[in-house]
């Protein structure tokens, strides 16, 4: 298995620490004037998102994690797994479990493209694009003439997310939503 020595550490590097795939967030080289050099490294565990720190002696090495990020199109769910297909023309498919899709569960729309992180070729996380356009399937009837100001009301999207929307929005409208904040941006069509 490939490995990286401390002098190759840099942020974004994917490594295997205590059995889990991790991404290096920060790498600080410490060298006392009269002492051994070491590296203080901050990691994010790619399975559970936990951030933690470990110190390495200069020259120590750690195994590389076979982690790849790729764009994949969401196909469908069979209730247990969510199926994605590579967009590189290979038509290769993977099945993500509930844990892997937890961050994008409410934003999945068939044929949209998501960033899927594969570890040893199995999906461990799925991130939605920053903005998605999804149809409203449930909300109170729209108030005619109210186009901008005023209150908000909840609307349920086809993907399952519930977002706050202006009063004029109707069932069947397609909305643009920021997935990072869950905020309504605008109505893209009727």
């Amino acid at each position, binding site marked *: 298995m490939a490995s990286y020595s401390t002098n190759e550490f840099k942020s974004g590097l994917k490594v295997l620490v205590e059995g889990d795939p991790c991404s290096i967030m920060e790498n600080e*080289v*410490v*060298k*006392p004037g009269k*002492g051994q050099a*070491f590296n203080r490294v901050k990691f994010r565990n790619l399975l559970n998102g936990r951030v*933690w720190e470990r110190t*390495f*002696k*200069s020259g120590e090495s750690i195994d590389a994690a076979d982690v790849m990020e790729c764009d994949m199109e969401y196909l469908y769910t069979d209730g247990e797994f969510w199926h994605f297909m590579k967009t590189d023309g290979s038509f290769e498919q993977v099945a993500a479990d509930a844990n892997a899709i937890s961050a994008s569960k409410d934003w999945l729309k068939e044929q949209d493209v998501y960033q899927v992180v594969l570890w040893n070729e199995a999906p461990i996380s799925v991130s939605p694009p920053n903005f998605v356009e999804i149809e409203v399937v449930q909300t109170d009837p729209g108030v005619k003439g109210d186009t901008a100001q005023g209150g908000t009301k909840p609307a349920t999207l086809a993907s399952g997310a519930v977002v706050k929307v202006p009063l004029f929005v109707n069932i069947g409208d397609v909305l643009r939503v920021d997935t990072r904040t869950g905020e309504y941006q605008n109505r893209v069509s009727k």
Partner: protein
Amino acid sequence: MVDWQSTATFNTLQARASLLQVIRQFFAERGVMEVETPSLSLGTVTDVHLASFPVPGLTDSGEPGYLQTSPEYAMKRLLASGSGPIYQICKAFRREETSRQHNPEFTMLEWYRPGFSLPELMDEVGSLLQQVLDCSEIPRFTYQQLFQQHLQIDPHSIETQQLREVLLGKINMDISGLDDTDCLQLLMNHCIEPALPSACFVYDYPVAQAALARIEHDGQGVAVAQRFELYCGGMELANGYHELSDAEEQRRRFAKDQARRKELGLPSIAADQRLLAALEDGLPDCSGVALGVDRLLMVKLGLNSIEEVLSFPGDRA
């Protein structure tokens, strides 16, 4: 695009020029003579944790030399020949990884004061710092005080086993192969440095960290190294010694370094015979200190990375 431009702003380069002027004025007023010694020399340090850049073909007969990691040996030879108090501002070279605080080539201010005790030299370093940074008096702590206050251990008497347990309780790492000194330095970096005031002196180091400092007994009869470090802005800014002048003791420390180098598979470095001969002839009782000028400028300007104070750092030199 080729990175040809300086990483320092014009204002920073001006601040650097002014700083060098202030330093030269400081020593001129105190009757300390500026000297220059070779950057490239036949001998170099044996220190296990310092790596020198070797340079082929230094002499006419083809002997290799080294870029100096500090001007210490040459300056001690001047002192032994009766130079009196001297200082030098020069480039020093260390073959180590670059970091926020490290560049392989850096500017060092080093000075020696015959007749000065270590506290007297700390006074002088403090005066220079107060002048450059316009700061208040710099507090002083012993190495032992800091370990007792922050970790409730005595760094001079703690047993290896207990030290390793303390380390494991505080720092997530593989401790195999670490010796007591490594453990103490890791604890210093992880647990004590973050809690230090913006500037302070740390003195009376464990004997194992003496390097080229004398060893004497402190008030409680414990042998300690007559060495201090000045911490400033979270960095080691200066390192001072009441200088070892005993040639025999110096020879033993060289031999110890060489043995350790062999154990660790590091290149062997011959003891500098000219330094030993100078010590045998007699180094006056003196204290000396080396201070990182680039880091001092970082602190003065509140900059976070050494690149910002260098015209051209290692990767675009």
